[in-house]
């Protein structure tokens, strides 16, 4: 496997009247070819801003302050706007949460797709139209020959998201960034869209970066998971690591707050009390400290990443060798 994308120490802030809001505070991760990586987190955790920063889609007052975004080893942040534009939509495509606002309402769906194809794939008009129809068929839109000449409002929410996916994939990108692609859709439609993304991944070996708040979606489609909180990565690991052996108290709390569907049991939900930190004045220590049931004095100091097993890292002092030693001793006493 080769590294397709490598993000290093990314920091993005918003300069507001009240001061600097540090939305993304030093995020680093890699994406390999053909991988589906999920970023999960609650609103305000910095997951969407991270995704937008990758393609330089941050609007003022937002600023990318630091960091590298290496795509095939080249830093996207050093590129000029025309260079970036050649990559955006071509090698890296992005789909957004709201398919209603990401399509131009006064331009026919086909024309929007053809524009993308002609710009990036250098196809002629007829060829681009043919390809657009093929793409629509591939994402499961019935009678694409007619549909291509309709306007976005004539499509349902699920269909519009299909159009967005068709458009995003029409140039065979190497990386697809999907920012909450199914959040606005009903479950049955969501299931169809997720399956579609998986099929396309299998067929084209496109890497996917999926941003979502739905842990169910992550478990179903991702191979690796990044858990964000307070603008930082709290934990990263394979889906099995995260769902079966979550090591960060935040991940554990998040998993416990989903109702478990088991017969005959109606357990009280375990909620995480309190609210996320204000990133206008982010805490200098662990961002989860205030809500953490295991918080201790040491947490005022920012923990480093600990690696409980290969490919699995966690930003928590509980995993330091001292604490692990203590835990083992305690367990030993109990037995």
């Amino acid at each position, binding site marked *: 496997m080769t590294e397709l994308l490598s993000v290093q120490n990314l920091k993005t802030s918003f300069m507001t009247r009240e001061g600097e809001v540090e939305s993304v505070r030093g995020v680093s991760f890699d994406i390999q070819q053909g991988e589906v990586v999920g970023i999960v987190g*609650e609103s305000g955790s910095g997951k969407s801003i991270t995704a937008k920063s990758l393609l330089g889609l941050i609007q003022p007052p937002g600023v990318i302050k630091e960091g590298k975004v290496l795509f095939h080893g080249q830093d996207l942040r050093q590129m000029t706007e025309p260079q970036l534009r050649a990559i955006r939509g071509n090698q890296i495509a992005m789909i957004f949460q709201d398919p209603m606002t990401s399509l131009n309402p006064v331009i026919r769906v086909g024309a929007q797709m053809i524009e993308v194809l002609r710009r990036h794939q250098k196809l002629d008009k007829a060829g681009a139209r043919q390809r657009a129809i093929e793409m629509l068929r591939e994402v499961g839109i019935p009678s694409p020959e007619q549909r291509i000449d309709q306007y976005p409002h004539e499509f349902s929410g699920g269909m519009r998201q299909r159009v967005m996916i068709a458009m995003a994939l029409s140039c065979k990108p190497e990386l697809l960034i999907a920012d909450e692609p199914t959040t606005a859709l*009903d479950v049955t439609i969501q299931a169809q869209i997720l399956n579609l993304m998986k099929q396309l991944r299998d067929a084209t070996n496109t890497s996917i970066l999926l941003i979502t708040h739905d842990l169910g979606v992550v478990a*179903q489609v991702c191979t690796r998971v990044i858990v964000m909180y307070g603008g930082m990565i709290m934990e990263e690991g394979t889906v099995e690591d995260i769902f079966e052996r979550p090591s960060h108290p935040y991940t554990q*709390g*998040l998993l416990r707050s989903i109702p478990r569907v088991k017969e005959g049991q109606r357990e009280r939900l375990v909620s995480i009390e309190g609210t996320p930190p204000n990133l206008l004045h982010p805490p200098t220590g662990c961002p989860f400290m205030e809500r953490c049931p295991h918080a201790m004095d040491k947490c005022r100091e920012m923990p480093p990443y600990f690696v409980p097993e290969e490919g699995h890292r966690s930003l928590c002092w509980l995993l330091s060798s001292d604490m692990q030693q203590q835990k083992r001793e305690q367990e030993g006493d109990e037995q």
Partner: protein
Amino acid sequence: MSTKNEVLLDVRNLKKYFPTGSSGFGREKKVLKAVDDISFHIHKGETFGLVGESGCGKSTTGRSIVRLHEVTDGEVWFDGVNVAQMNEKGLKPFRKRMQTIFQDPYSSLNPSMNVAQLIREPMEIHGFGSKKDQHDRVLELLEKVGLKPEHVDRYPHEFSGGQRQRISIARALSVNPEFILCDEPISALDVSVQAQVVNMLEDLQGEFGLTYLFIAHDLSMVRHISNRIGVMYLGKLVEIAPSDELYTHPAHPYTQALLSAIPIPDPKAAALDTGMLKGDLPSPMAEMNGCKFSSRCPFATEQCRQEQPEMKEISPGHFVACHL
């Protein structure tokens, strides 16, 4: 519990149609049958969940019951009185007993009122005690919903989504209602905050003996909170059953499809099963003779397309509208 068997709300053949403009010269008025002849009841102290995809009529049902909509036809018996066709004056005492919590905590609270005013407003409308009593009650309610007394003179924009929903709940509780319509109260909230609000709703139900109609599209949360659940599809109730029964033995093909589409937060669980359901919801404007689900149902027969199925009881308390 004896109270469990007492019916608080009995909805019979409820219909809500919306006229949707005329097609050509005003001769043929089209109607949208948002809620088309549904019946169910809710016991005292019970939580009844209503689920379905967007556009199925679940919110319209809720709003018709608390009379935020005029009812086209049918009866809504609340504690032995039919409120479906009642005028506004007659309704006022019932408005106090039936309260609503809405989905969007950002638009359902007046941004120019502070917390004390927001919570006090229902009490003022319904003439609840003196100014002093009202103020004491505001403080008491704030504590109940986990907010602090110093929050009273803050405005909605100073609160997070979860906190706003707590204010909405305090506001609904201020007039001692018996029935609360929860219209997607947690859909706009983050997972960890959803759990806080659901736990609180459960605690309050225990404390005040409240009856809930809980409308949502998040099926796992509905199962958690509801005693019984009704599944809606295009204005029709297709299945009603006790929660666990519905999830373990879904009888209607639509319920089965809906349940199989929930992403399970466990990577070992079987992959999403979408073999069953293809395509989108048909337009609710389209006239259909038979079962409304027949166009998407993998088991549909000629009978399904011709004849509307009736609700049948297949096991105690489990009703299904399906020919199969």
